């Protein structure tokens, strides 16, 4: 029963009830990222406000539970945050995903995203978890240009 440690209740919840899903206007930048090995894809829009505030992150896409839940968790985390705060979380999340199960992840920084720790043991699925987060990083870079 190894897989069940990957499919945490929280991940399944987000998959079944995704938060913030659907593309919205207005936005500063839109990006489209795909995972060529499995065909998962995401379109993401970012709207930034004054003082580096994240005003909205909206997205649409298709893929496995891990990639879809990761997008939903990301959305919640960006709500009411600043770009700097969220990029720090993206960094910690990336570090966790690339750890091959060697670290647990800092829950203080990651919040709900810590539930993805189990995914890092599956090299083939790490890209699923990172898809939305990489798209977000890309979109933020483009909007602050």
């Amino acid at each position: 029963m190894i897989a069940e440690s990957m499919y945490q209740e929280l991940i399944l919840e987000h998959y079944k009830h995704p938060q913030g899903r659907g593309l919205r206007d207005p936005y500063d930048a839109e990006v489209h990222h795909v995972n060529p090995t499995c065909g998962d894809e995401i379109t993401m829009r970012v709207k930034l406000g004054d003082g580096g505030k994240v005003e909205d992150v909206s997205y649409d896409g298709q893929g496995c539970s891990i990639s879809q839940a990761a997008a939903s968790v990301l959305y919640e985390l960006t709500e009411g945050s600043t770009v700097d705060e969220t990029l720090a979380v993206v960094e910690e999340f990336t570090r966790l995903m690339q750890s091959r199960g060697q670290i647990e992840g800092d829950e203080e920084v990651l919040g709900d995203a810590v539930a993805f720790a189990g995914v890092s043991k599956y090299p083939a699925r790490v890209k699923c978890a990172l898809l939305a987060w990489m798209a977000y990083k890309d979109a933020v870079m483009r909007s602050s240009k």
Partner: protein
Amino acid sequence: MTTGFDAERIRKDFPVLSRELPGGRPLVYLDSANSAQKPTRVVEAMREHMAMHYSNVGRAMHALGAESTEAYEAARDKIAAFVGAPSREEIVFTKNASEALNLVAYSFGNRTNDDPRFRMGPGDEIVISEMEHHSNIVPWQMLAQRTGATLRWFGVTDEGRLDLGNLEELVNERTKIVSIVHQSNVLGTVNPVERVLARVRQVGALMMLDASQSVPHQAVDVAALGVDFLAFTGHKVVGPSGVGVLWGRGELLDAMPPFLGGGEMIEAVWMDRSTYAPAPHKFEAGTPPIVEAVGLGAAVDYLSEIGLDAVARHERELTAYALEALAEVPGLKVVGPRDLDMRGGTVSFTLEGIHPHDVGQILDDDFGVAVRVGHHCARPLHLRFGIPATTRASFYLYTVPAEIDALVRGLHHVRKVFA
């Protein structure tokens, strides 16, 4: 259910089938369409050759060179007999099916080849189908781009059959080559070669079959099929990876330009030009996959002794059993024919609301059931059905009904996790 075929005894020939996976899970290998497992016979033949008879082939003037060459060429004889090739010189060893397909595509529109059958340019047409593996799509796209020819394709019906509704229009006087899959690696569909070939002959075109998924599962006789080229790959016929086969009609192979240049494919070399060895050596540049060819020879011997007709019957019964059992899983939709007519033991499906990657992960981790998930190198076919991916279970001579039961149990569990 019994198939009157002693699959349990056959399983003993495949050491991997009795191993356990980490966590004490038994292995339920339902991914033979991807690559087949290997019987001891093949492993031993390769070990024996590598340990006791190994040397380069064709060029070494010593005892080991002779033994190695003899074993390599004996493998060619076995394969020629296995697929009913009229001549052993018509069997070309390649790296895999992909290389065999590329080799043939490369022969067209090549400036060094003035044979009219291989001339290609704007106005000429190449015909493939929507159910092809990328290996039988991309080389033809590249050919079309190189020559300005037009790439066209057969559609696929909702049931997963080749749509022959526009056969007459699609295959016409402009067509130079039709290359289609014999048995689909996703749908399991076995295509009606005869009907397509009759039209191909009417218009004077050539026909190639991608037999990667048929040669392992049914008796294939190239002479009886009557096509011009046929490709298959060693690792799916219980042989090793690293070796594949192109069969081509002798007079066509003679008319084709070499593919790769190098050692052993030449007759004489000057600084500014070369003449080439006759087929098949013309197409086997460099040191070939010697040990792999020997392994493939042992693999076809093994399959011949069991008999491909018996294998096909066994798989047919397994497929009937699987189609019925899978129909009971709520939300499961088979992509491909649901009857046994002209169909092999490969069953792809979707589970409503659950992504194939999640299905595959839980089947593997919780039940040791190995299936393939994704688009199986047939993305256009998945686009045709408007789905990004499927889960695919594929059966072979060593598959037993209990493994299908394990799959079905696993699928019920997957549904519970995502309920």
